[in-house]
């Protein structure tokens, strides 16, 4: 017994030393990323949280004095004359519009992205590469320029209206610009690749013999899609939806350009507080509200996804 123990000891301590060294190396290797995260993400986040609890400065900025006003004005407002407290309709409607537009953008991206990804995943290797390359082309250009390009297409004198007028389908140009629809189209255009790519990644890994097995076991095309393909690409659906929903919710450029001044989203509202609104604490509080919405949406989504998973097995 004692022999065995003493014999195994040097080996064990050597292994432990290797373990310790491994751990240290891992920390060293991840240190640069951790430092950047600390300074560029967590640091500013703490500043935002702190600012949201301070008093606003008269010309922007903050005064170092505790105040709940920022949070208070996220959904409530005080009438300047009567001091009557009412719900801030403007904020609530912008909030709801943001959630609504992001939600429908995500759904549309899924509807358009799913067949696209399926199409690419079922091509041969060579043409797959070509299609993926084509999908990434929009990323080569600046977002603002792309959004202006969309505007060229949908504005009153734009391509769509000229075409429809020319064909005699309509008598007067359709008002597409500065509508929720325009914003949603813009968001869809910008974020569709972020849906297609993760969907493709999970579809590419499907063993298409499973599809054959589905057909063999009396499942029609639709049922194979629903019971075989969809469950297998669910990780891609989740990833794609998250990648589309989150940036859509905080979108700034697209609603600004395509929605005009009327169809604001949360990103524009926040920007306004730091700009002409000169209400930094409110801006900070709105930012955190946005984050909270994202977190809640994510939690609901993931929980729902794992629940359906459990039901389907």
């Amino acid at each position, binding site marked *: 017994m004692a022999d065995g123990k003493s014999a195994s000891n040097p080996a064990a301590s050597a292994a432990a030393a290797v373990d310790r060294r491994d751990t240290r190396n891992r920390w060293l290797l991840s240190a640069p990323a951790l430092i950047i995260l600390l300074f560029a993400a967590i640091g500013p986040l703490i500043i935002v949280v702190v600012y949201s609890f301070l008093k606003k400065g008269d010309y922007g900025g903050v005064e170092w004095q505790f105040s709940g006003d920022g949070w208070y004005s996220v959904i409530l407002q005080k009438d300047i004359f009567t001091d009557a407290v009412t719900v801030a309709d403007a904020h609530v409607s912008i909030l709801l519009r943001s959630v609504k537009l992001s939600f429908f953008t995500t759904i549309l991206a899924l509807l358009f992205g799913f067949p696209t990804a399926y199409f690419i995943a079922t091509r041969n290797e060579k043409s797959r590469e070509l299609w993926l390359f084509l999908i990434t082309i929009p990323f080569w250009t600046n977002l603002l320029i792309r959004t202006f390009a969309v505007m060229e297409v949908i504005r009153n004198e734009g391509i769509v209206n000229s075409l429809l007028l020319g064909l005699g389908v309509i008598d007067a140009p359709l008002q597409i610009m500065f509508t929720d629809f325009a914003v949603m189209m813009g968001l869809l255009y910008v974020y569709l690749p972020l849906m297609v790519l993760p969907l493709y990644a999970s579809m590419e890994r499907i063993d298409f013999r499973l599809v*054959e*097995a589905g057909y063999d076991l009396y499942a029609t095309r639709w049922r194979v899609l629903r019971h075989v393909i969809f469950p297998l690409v669910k990780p891609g659906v989740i990833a794609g939806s998250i990648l589309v929903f989150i940036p859509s919710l905080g979108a700034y450029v697209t609603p600004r350009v395509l929605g005009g001044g009327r169809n604001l989203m949360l990103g524009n509202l926040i920007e306004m507080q730091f700009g002409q609104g000169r209400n930094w604490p409110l801006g900070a509080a709105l930012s955190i509200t946005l984050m909270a919405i994202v977190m809640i949406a994510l939690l609901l989504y993931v929980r729902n996804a794992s629940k359906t998973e459990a039901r389907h097995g």
Partner: protein
Amino acid sequence: MSAAVAVEAKNVSKIFGTAGAEVRALDNVSVTIRQNEFFTLLGPSGCGKTTLLRLIAGFEMPSEGSILLEGDEVAHLPPYKRHVNTVFQSYALFPHMTVAQNIAFGLEMLGKPKAEVQQTVAAMLKLVRMEELKDRRTSQISGGQQQRVALARALAPRPKVLLLDEPLSALDLKLRKEMQIELKRMQMETGITFIFVTHDQEEALTMSDRIAVMSKGKILQIGSPTEIYEHPTVRFVADFIGETNFIEAEVTQRIGGDGQIKLPSGVTISHPVAENVGVGAVVTLAIRPERIDLVRPGAEAHLNGKISNVVYFGTDTTFHVEIDGANKHVTARVQNRRGHQEVLKAGDAVGLRVAPDAMQILKD
């Protein structure tokens, strides 16, 4: 009743690829498979056996010809409208479902009532002896167990025909032997027609009621395992299944259906020959190594020669014999029923004697 037809392929051809680069995977194939039969399509890879199976399953459409399932034309029906199920080579089990859910899939798609589904799944789990693992994910069970689940899943909807695409090829030898017996048992218990695709001649011989040997898109011979093994009609079949010696011999005379055939040793034997074989024709005789007896050179022997090599296999010993006057060597296998006999060794002159019914004249 037992002669009723399960599947019939009539003049089926399948051409893959586009004009110019065509591959004829099946070339005018006709075959009739009876109900309750264990029918095997045997051949080397690329012979078209899997293509024929996929045509019956409905994954491919024939380029020409028709496929009848119990008398009804199905060639252009999608797989989900054919009462036929497949056990895939890769099993193709649904990874997002448990064992029981996999087995229930086909029944659910057919819209069977819940109680019936549960009952059938339970019966299938019992049939393949997987009751205890029914709630496992398919990734959490071994290859042999996956094989059983694939089998249960395909049998659960009680198909008219079960198609098996080299289902045992991924298993190790011991498991494969077990599954051969299991498969045969399940076929007998369920009474379902099995069409089994394999390149393994031993698998084909041990399990099948009938075998179709395929090569280059054509069926060369259909018959029971003994017919295929004992009486191959063409060289490919004789060569592909088991070991065979080929001996060229000349027909010297014809008396009715029988021909006088002169062996390289000069010995003449009498053997039935086909109508179209005339006097002077050279025919090929196929002789299995285990049907050759080693005798003293001389009168008793059909062929004479010199032993060039002796290989001991444990159960039997193989003698390679250079045949006199034929520049050819013949393999003779002798069972070591009384242990290894070291009487004969390389260099010894020896005579070979073959039972008349062990000589098979080939058509080509």
